[in-house]
């Protein structure tokens, strides 16, 4: 896959300073990354390796200690740049707002006209299949539906770069596969560049154009796999022989790192 570079990290490191007697924590890097326009890029790695830190840096939610992070050529400083959307791992729907008001939250804070808010929200809810639940509250939705709501709330802002931090982590396997199909459909429709952080190797292998494997902390990329899937792919590619080979390679690279990340017995 070729295309303009949408977001990049150059020799980025993130070190959290120690508090009191605690030592500083070298959470990430040095790491280099170049995200191509319109690609679906996944990152897998052992627990605590810095995957979420990587996402925070790319989103502008966290600054770098060393190196440069850029979005559309501009240096990322404090604050999420316009055009970047983030979906978090935990359920981040606002329980006091119904689905429509949740989805329109960001637009209303920006002072977008009411008619435009309605149009964009209707589109986003239709895209994620929640249009029939517009007046429902998050408590009335399943876990998968709440995550779709959080995706809709991000999509209404028309992100050009969509960052997802284990969005399906709390869901069962079948729902994850179906949600993966939904995410691919949304990716194709919006033509956004997607970066997905996930623990699930099969999910990364199934959804992505490229998959990066991170080492144990401090996280660095130790492998980068081009899957070669067509853009029209869906969850049925799990039956493709290549799927098994990709997953096997991911685990082969990841196993040793995962053992390093486990607490010593």
């Amino acid at each position: 896959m070729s295309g303009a570079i949408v977001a990049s990290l150059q020799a980025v490191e993130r070190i959290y300073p120690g508090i009191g007697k605690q030592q500083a924590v070298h959470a990430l890097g040095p790491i280099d990354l170049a995200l191509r326009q319109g690609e679906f890029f996944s990152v897998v790695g052992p627990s605590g390796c810095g995957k979420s830190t990587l996402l925070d840096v790319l989103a502008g939610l966290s600054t770098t200690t060393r190196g440069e992070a850029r979005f559309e050529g501009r240096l990322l400083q404090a604050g999420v740049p316009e055009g970047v959307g983030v979906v978090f791992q935990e359920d981040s729907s606002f329980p006091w707002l119904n689905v429509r008001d949740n989805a329109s939250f960001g637009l209303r804070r920006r002072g977008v006209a009411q008619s435009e808010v309605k149009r964009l929200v209707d589109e986003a809810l239709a895209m994620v299949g929640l249009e029939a639940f517009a007046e429902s509250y998050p408590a009335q939705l399943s876990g998968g539906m709440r995550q779709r709501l959080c995706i809709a709330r991000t999509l209404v802002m028309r992100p050009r770069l969509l960052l997802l931090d284990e969005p399906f982590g709390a869901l069962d396997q079948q729902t994850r596969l179906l949600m993966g199909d939904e995410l691919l459909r949304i990716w194709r429709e919006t033509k956004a560049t997607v970066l997905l952080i996930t623990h699930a190797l099969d999910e990364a292998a199934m959804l992505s154009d490229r998959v990066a494997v991170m080492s144990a902390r401090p996280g660095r990329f130790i492998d980068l796999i081009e899957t070669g899937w067509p853009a029209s792919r869906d969850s049925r590619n799990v039956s493709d022989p290549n799927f098994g080979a990709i997953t096997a390679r991911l685990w082969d690279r990841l196993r040793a790192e995962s053992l390093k990340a486990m607490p010593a017995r």
Partner: protein
Amino acid sequence: MILVLIGILESACRMAWIDPIAVIAPSKMFQGAVSLLASGQYAEDILLTLQTVAAALVISVITGFGLGLLLFRLPRLKAAADPFLASYYAIPMFMFYPLFIVMFGLNRWPLVAIGFVFSFIAMAINTVDGLNRVPRVLMRVGQSMNLSAWQRIRFIQLPAAAPYLFTGVKLAVVYAFIGVIAGEFVLAGAGFGYRIAFAYNAFDNATMYGLLVLLIGGVGGLNLSLYRWERLIHERRGGR
């Protein structure tokens, strides 16, 4: 269960197992309450008490919320204040009444102050608790949308903390009533609490118990309404 206990008390009183000087039958208490309400004899006192409670409540909710917000924003101050907050209700607040008379004069304001000192801490503690329990991910959503600190407080933290703030208001209502009415028992010349104490001292059990039934019914009914409202909020949020 409550009805069973009332039934037992009713039987005991009718069988003269209990001295009517001490306790009258619940049916007579209820009759007394109805006739007192219908006669309007103590309407002025009831209104006076309600006004005093309302004043104490409004001031304590606003002040308690402000204090809670301050303690939330300044964790070190909260840590320093924690031992005091934990032992606050061990302090006999009525000992401040003479001080409040010196400060505010011989009027209703010392009773407002008593109601205030009883109730504002409950509001403060619940405000801090509610703000501390806002899920971190909701704040990160606000951050990801580049909301200002004030926007995050107004549009995320306060709505997220609303159930706890509501609990604070509910407790403040109860404590304001306790403070004002208990204050009127011993320290006032008018008001609902004063009338109860007067009836007690005059051995007028019918009036005393009638007024008590009115008090329990009124405050209990108010609290029940607040409780139902609170449940609605919680149900809508699925307990989150």
